[in-house]
Protein backbone atom coordinates (compact mmCIF):
# COMPACT_ATOMS: atom_id res chain seq x y z
CA UNK A 1 0.00 0.00 0.00
CA UNK A 2 1.25 3.48 -0.93
CA UNK A 3 2.20 5.45 2.22
CA UNK A 4 0.81 8.68 0.73
CA UNK A 5 -2.56 6.99 0.22
CA UNK A 6 -2.58 5.82 3.84
CA UNK A 7 -1.82 9.33 5.00
CA UNK A 8 -4.62 10.70 2.82
CA UNK A 9 -7.06 8.16 4.25
CA UNK A 10 -6.11 9.27 7.73
CA UNK A 11 -6.30 12.99 6.92
CA UNK A 12 -9.62 12.72 5.08
CA UNK A 13 -11.43 10.34 7.35
CA UNK A 14 -15.04 11.17 8.08
CA UNK A 15 -15.74 14.00 10.50
CA UNK A 16 -18.50 14.08 13.05
CA UNK A 17 -21.38 16.33 12.04
CA UNK A 18 -21.87 19.37 14.31
CA UNK A 19 -23.91 18.94 17.47
CA UNK A 20 -27.65 19.14 16.74
CA UNK A 21 -27.19 18.75 12.98
CA UNK A 22 -29.96 16.19 12.47
CA UNK A 23 -32.38 18.22 14.64
CA UNK A 24 -31.76 21.28 12.47
CA UNK A 25 -32.31 19.24 9.29
CA UNK A 26 -35.57 17.85 10.67
CA UNK A 27 -36.72 21.32 11.71
CA UNK A 28 -36.14 22.52 8.13
CA UNK A 29 -38.08 19.57 6.72
CA UNK A 30 -40.98 20.40 9.05
CA UNK A 31 -40.93 23.99 7.74
CA UNK A 32 -40.87 22.61 4.23
CA UNK A 33 -43.88 20.38 4.81
CA UNK A 34 -45.94 23.01 6.71
CA UNK A 35 -49.70 22.71 7.20
CA UNK A 36 -51.71 21.73 4.11
CA UNK A 37 -52.93 24.81 2.23
CA UNK A 38 -56.48 24.84 0.82
CA UNK A 39 -57.07 25.53 -2.86
CA UNK A 40 -59.11 28.70 -2.19
CA UNK A 41 -56.43 30.06 0.14
CA UNK A 42 -53.78 29.48 -2.51
CA UNK A 43 -55.99 31.16 -5.13
CA UNK A 44 -56.67 34.12 -2.82
CA UNK A 45 -52.96 34.48 -2.11
CA UNK A 46 -52.24 34.31 -5.84
CA UNK A 47 -54.82 37.00 -6.63
CA UNK A 48 -53.64 39.19 -3.74
CA UNK A 49 -50.21 39.63 -5.31
CA UNK A 50 -49.78 43.38 -6.18
CA UNK A 51 -48.33 42.79 -9.64
CA UNK A 52 -51.22 40.54 -10.52
CA UNK A 53 -53.69 43.11 -9.16
CA UNK A 54 -52.21 45.89 -11.34
CA UNK A 55 -52.15 43.57 -14.33
CA UNK A 56 -55.85 42.76 -13.77
CA UNK A 57 -56.73 46.48 -13.46
CA UNK A 58 -54.82 47.19 -16.69
CA UNK A 59 -56.56 44.35 -18.48
CA UNK A 60 -60.00 45.58 -17.30
CA UNK A 61 -59.19 49.09 -18.58
CA UNK A 62 -58.11 47.77 -21.96
CA UNK A 63 -61.28 45.65 -22.24
CA UNK A 64 -63.51 48.61 -21.19
CA UNK A 65 -61.88 50.97 -23.72
CA UNK A 66 -62.17 48.39 -26.45
CA UNK A 67 -65.90 47.79 -25.69
CA UNK A 68 -66.60 51.56 -25.66
CA UNK A 69 -64.77 52.04 -28.95
CA UNK A 70 -66.68 49.18 -30.58
CA UNK A 71 -70.03 50.54 -29.26
CA UNK A 72 -69.26 54.00 -30.65
CA UNK A 73 -68.32 52.57 -34.03
CA UNK A 74 -71.52 50.50 -34.07
CA UNK A 75 -73.63 53.63 -33.25
CA UNK A 76 -71.99 55.59 -36.07
CA UNK A 77 -72.57 52.74 -38.50
CA UNK A 78 -76.27 52.55 -37.51
CA UNK A 79 -76.70 56.35 -37.91
CA UNK A 80 -75.09 56.20 -41.36
CA UNK A 81 -77.39 53.37 -42.38
CA UNK A 82 -80.46 55.35 -41.21
CA UNK A 83 -79.32 58.45 -43.12
CA UNK A 84 -78.83 56.36 -46.27
CA UNK A 85 -82.38 54.96 -45.97
CA UNK A 86 -83.80 58.49 -45.45
CA UNK A 87 -81.93 59.89 -48.48
CA UNK A 88 -83.21 57.01 -50.62
CA UNK A 89 -86.76 57.64 -49.46
CA UNK A 90 -86.45 61.38 -50.09
CA UNK A 91 -85.14 60.70 -53.59
CA UNK A 92 -88.01 58.28 -54.22
CA UNK A 93 -90.57 60.89 -53.08
CA UNK A 94 -88.90 63.61 -55.16
CA UNK A 95 -88.95 61.33 -58.19
CA UNK A 96 -92.69 60.63 -57.77
CA UNK A 97 -93.44 64.35 -57.42
CA UNK A 98 -91.32 65.23 -60.48
CA UNK A 99 -93.08 62.58 -62.56
CA UNK A 100 -96.46 63.99 -61.54
CA UNK A 101 -95.37 67.51 -62.42
CA UNK A 102 -94.06 66.34 -65.80
CA UNK A 103 -97.35 64.60 -66.58
CA UNK A 104 -99.25 67.81 -65.71
CA UNK A 105 -96.99 69.91 -67.94
CA UNK A 106 -97.50 67.46 -70.84
CA UNK A 107 -101.30 67.53 -70.40
CA UNK A 108 -101.28 71.33 -70.37
CA UNK A 109 -99.12 71.42 -73.45
CA UNK A 110 -101.46 68.98 -75.29
CA UNK A 111 -104.63 71.08 -74.44
CA UNK A 112 -103.18 74.52 -75.33
CA UNK A 113 -104.24 76.32 -78.77
CA UNK A 114 -101.66 76.28 -81.69
CA UNK A 115 -101.87 80.06 -82.15
CA UNK A 116 -100.45 80.75 -78.85
CA UNK A 117 -97.14 79.28 -80.08
Amino acid sequence: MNPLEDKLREALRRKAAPEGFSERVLARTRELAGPPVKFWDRLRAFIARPTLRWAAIGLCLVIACSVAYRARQEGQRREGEMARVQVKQALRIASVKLNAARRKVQEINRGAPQSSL
Partner: protein
Amino acid sequence: MTNARLERREDALARVARGDATAFADIVQEHQFMVFSITYHFLHDRSLAEEAAQDVFLRLYRNLASIKSPQHLVFWLRKVACRRALDEVRKLPKAPPASLEDVAEPAGDPPDSDPLLSRGLRRMVASLPEDSRAVIILRYQEELDLAEIARILDLPLNTVKSRLERSLGVLREKLHRWAGGVAR
Protein backbone atom coordinates in the same frame (compact mmCIF):
# COMPACT_ATOMS: atom_id res chain seq x y z
CA MET B 1 -22.08 -3.69 4.43
CA THR B 2 -23.34 -6.06 7.12
CA ASN B 3 -26.72 -7.70 6.74
CA ALA B 4 -28.05 -6.05 9.89
CA ARG B 5 -27.13 -2.56 8.59
CA LEU B 6 -28.61 -3.30 5.20
CA GLU B 7 -31.83 -4.52 6.78
CA ARG B 8 -32.01 -1.42 8.95
CA ARG B 9 -31.56 0.83 5.91
CA GLU B 10 -34.16 -1.07 3.91
CA ASP B 11 -36.45 -0.85 6.91
CA ALA B 12 -35.97 2.95 7.12
CA LEU B 13 -36.78 3.35 3.41
CA ALA B 14 -39.84 1.12 3.71
CA ARG B 15 -41.01 3.10 6.74
CA VAL B 16 -40.55 6.35 4.79
CA ALA B 17 -42.70 4.88 2.00
CA ARG B 18 -45.39 4.07 4.59
CA GLY B 19 -45.29 7.70 5.78
CA ASP B 20 -43.44 7.09 9.05
CA ALA B 21 -42.08 10.51 10.04
CA THR B 22 -39.34 9.07 12.27
CA ALA B 23 -37.83 7.04 9.44
CA PHE B 24 -36.35 10.12 7.77
CA ALA B 25 -34.73 11.07 11.07
CA ASP B 26 -33.07 7.63 11.12
CA ILE B 27 -31.75 8.17 7.60
CA VAL B 28 -30.31 11.57 8.56
CA GLN B 29 -28.74 10.08 11.69
CA GLU B 30 -27.13 7.30 9.73
CA HIS B 31 -25.70 9.35 6.86
CA GLN B 32 -24.96 12.72 8.43
CA PHE B 33 -21.24 11.96 8.99
CA MET B 34 -20.73 10.93 5.38
CA VAL B 35 -22.55 13.93 3.88
CA PHE B 36 -21.06 16.47 6.29
CA SER B 37 -17.54 15.08 5.75
CA ILE B 38 -17.81 15.37 1.97
CA THR B 39 -18.97 18.99 2.16
CA TYR B 40 -16.47 19.81 4.93
CA HIS B 41 -13.48 18.42 3.04
CA PHE B 42 -14.53 20.43 0.00
CA LEU B 43 -15.27 23.70 1.72
CA HIS B 44 -13.08 23.75 4.84
CA ASP B 45 -15.64 25.92 6.55
CA ARG B 46 -17.88 24.35 9.16
CA SER B 47 -20.86 26.65 8.73
CA LEU B 48 -20.77 26.50 4.92
CA ALA B 49 -20.32 22.74 5.08
CA GLU B 50 -23.26 22.36 7.46
CA GLU B 51 -25.47 24.56 5.29
CA ALA B 52 -24.57 22.51 2.22
CA ALA B 53 -25.08 19.20 4.05
CA GLN B 54 -28.50 20.36 5.30
CA ASP B 55 -29.46 21.27 1.74
CA VAL B 56 -28.48 17.78 0.61
CA PHE B 57 -30.82 16.21 3.16
CA LEU B 58 -33.63 18.64 2.26
CA ARG B 59 -33.21 17.65 -1.37
CA LEU B 60 -33.35 14.02 -0.29
CA TYR B 61 -36.55 14.72 1.65
CA ARG B 62 -38.15 16.10 -1.51
CA ASN B 63 -36.91 13.19 -3.63
CA LEU B 64 -37.46 10.30 -1.26
CA ALA B 65 -39.97 8.70 -3.61
CA SER B 66 -37.29 8.26 -6.27
CA ILE B 67 -34.90 6.34 -3.98
CA LYS B 68 -35.06 2.67 -4.89
CA SER B 69 -32.72 0.94 -2.45
CA PRO B 70 -30.22 1.59 0.36
CA GLN B 71 -27.36 1.38 -2.15
CA HIS B 72 -29.11 3.90 -4.36
CA LEU B 73 -29.61 6.14 -1.33
CA VAL B 74 -25.87 6.20 -0.53
CA PHE B 75 -24.97 6.75 -4.19
CA TRP B 76 -27.53 9.58 -4.43
CA LEU B 77 -26.29 11.27 -1.24
CA ARG B 78 -22.64 11.15 -2.35
CA LYS B 79 -23.51 12.50 -5.80
CA VAL B 80 -25.69 15.34 -4.53
CA ALA B 81 -23.23 16.21 -1.74
CA CYS B 82 -20.39 16.48 -4.28
CA ARG B 83 -22.47 18.60 -6.64
CA ARG B 84 -23.69 20.87 -3.87
CA ALA B 85 -20.16 21.30 -2.50
CA LEU B 86 -18.78 21.99 -5.99
CA ASP B 87 -21.48 24.62 -6.55
CA GLU B 88 -20.59 26.22 -3.23
CA VAL B 89 -16.83 26.16 -3.98
CA ARG B 90 -17.45 27.84 -7.33
CA LYS B 91 -19.50 30.57 -5.66
CA LEU B 92 -16.67 31.39 -3.24
CA PRO B 93 -14.35 34.23 -4.21
CA LYS B 94 -11.17 33.03 -5.86
CA ALA B 95 -8.99 33.85 -2.88
CA PRO B 96 -6.25 31.51 -1.68
CA PRO B 97 -7.82 28.91 0.63
CA ALA B 98 -7.91 29.78 4.30
CA SER B 99 -5.09 28.45 6.36
CA LEU B 100 -6.20 25.25 8.01
CA GLU B 101 -4.38 26.29 11.14
CA ASP B 102 -7.08 28.92 11.51
CA VAL B 103 -9.91 26.45 11.04
CA ALA B 104 -11.13 24.65 14.11
CA GLU B 105 -11.28 20.90 13.71
CA PRO B 106 -14.72 19.41 14.31
CA ALA B 107 -15.03 18.34 17.90
CA GLY B 108 -15.44 14.72 18.86
CA ASP B 109 -13.21 13.18 16.19
CA PRO B 110 -10.59 10.62 17.15
CA PRO B 111 -7.15 12.26 17.15
CA ASP B 112 -4.89 11.78 14.12
CA SER B 113 -1.74 9.75 14.61
CA ASP B 114 0.18 12.71 13.21
CA PRO B 115 -2.06 15.77 13.47
CA LEU B 116 0.47 18.10 11.90
CA LEU B 117 0.87 15.89 8.84
CA SER B 118 -2.91 15.36 8.51
CA ARG B 119 -3.53 19.08 8.71
CA GLY B 120 -0.83 19.76 6.13
CA LEU B 121 -2.31 17.15 3.81
CA ARG B 122 -5.80 18.59 4.14
CA ARG B 123 -4.39 21.97 3.24
CA MET B 124 -2.71 20.45 0.18
CA VAL B 125 -5.95 18.74 -0.85
CA ALA B 126 -7.73 22.08 -0.42
CA SER B 127 -5.29 23.67 -2.84
CA LEU B 128 -6.14 21.18 -5.61
CA PRO B 129 -8.59 22.19 -8.38
CA GLU B 130 -12.21 21.40 -7.43
CA ASP B 131 -12.63 18.48 -9.82
CA SER B 132 -9.44 16.80 -8.64
CA ARG B 133 -10.43 17.48 -5.03
CA ALA B 134 -13.70 15.62 -5.64
CA VAL B 135 -11.81 12.58 -6.90
CA ILE B 136 -9.41 12.60 -3.93
CA ILE B 137 -12.22 13.01 -1.38
CA LEU B 138 -14.33 10.22 -2.86
CA ARG B 139 -11.30 7.96 -3.17
CA TYR B 140 -9.78 8.45 0.28
CA GLN B 141 -12.64 9.59 2.45
CA GLU B 142 -15.28 7.32 0.98
CA GLU B 143 -12.87 4.57 -0.16
CA LEU B 144 -14.63 4.22 -3.51
CA ASP B 145 -13.22 2.49 -6.54
CA LEU B 146 -12.54 4.50 -9.67
CA ALA B 147 -15.57 3.20 -11.57
CA GLU B 148 -17.90 4.33 -8.82
CA ILE B 149 -16.22 7.75 -8.61
CA ALA B 150 -16.68 8.07 -12.38
CA ARG B 151 -20.39 7.25 -12.00
CA ILE B 152 -20.86 9.76 -9.17
CA LEU B 153 -19.05 12.58 -10.96
CA ASP B 154 -20.45 11.70 -14.41
CA LEU B 155 -16.95 11.45 -15.84
CA PRO B 156 -15.24 8.89 -18.07
CA LEU B 157 -13.20 6.34 -16.12
CA ASN B 158 -9.96 7.40 -17.82
CA THR B 159 -10.51 11.02 -16.79
CA VAL B 160 -10.93 9.93 -13.16
CA LYS B 161 -7.77 7.80 -13.41
CA SER B 162 -5.70 10.60 -14.88
CA ARG B 163 -7.02 13.15 -12.37
CA LEU B 164 -6.22 10.84 -9.48
CA GLU B 165 -2.71 10.14 -10.74
CA ARG B 166 -2.04 13.80 -11.44
CA SER B 167 -3.39 14.84 -8.02
CA LEU B 168 -1.33 12.20 -6.24
CA GLY B 169 1.74 13.41 -8.11
CA VAL B 170 1.07 16.99 -7.06
CA LEU B 171 0.40 15.95 -3.46
CA ARG B 172 3.52 13.79 -3.34
CA GLU B 173 5.64 16.66 -4.53
CA LYS B 174 4.05 19.12 -2.11
CA LEU B 175 4.40 16.67 0.76
CA HIS B 176 8.05 16.17 -0.11
CA ARG B 177 8.66 19.91 -0.05
CA TRP B 178 6.60 20.32 3.11
CA ALA B 179 8.48 17.51 4.88
CA GLY B 180 11.76 19.18 3.91
CA GLY B 181 10.50 22.47 5.31
CA VAL B 182 9.36 20.87 8.56
CA ALA B 183 12.64 18.98 8.99
CA ARG B 184 14.65 22.19 8.57
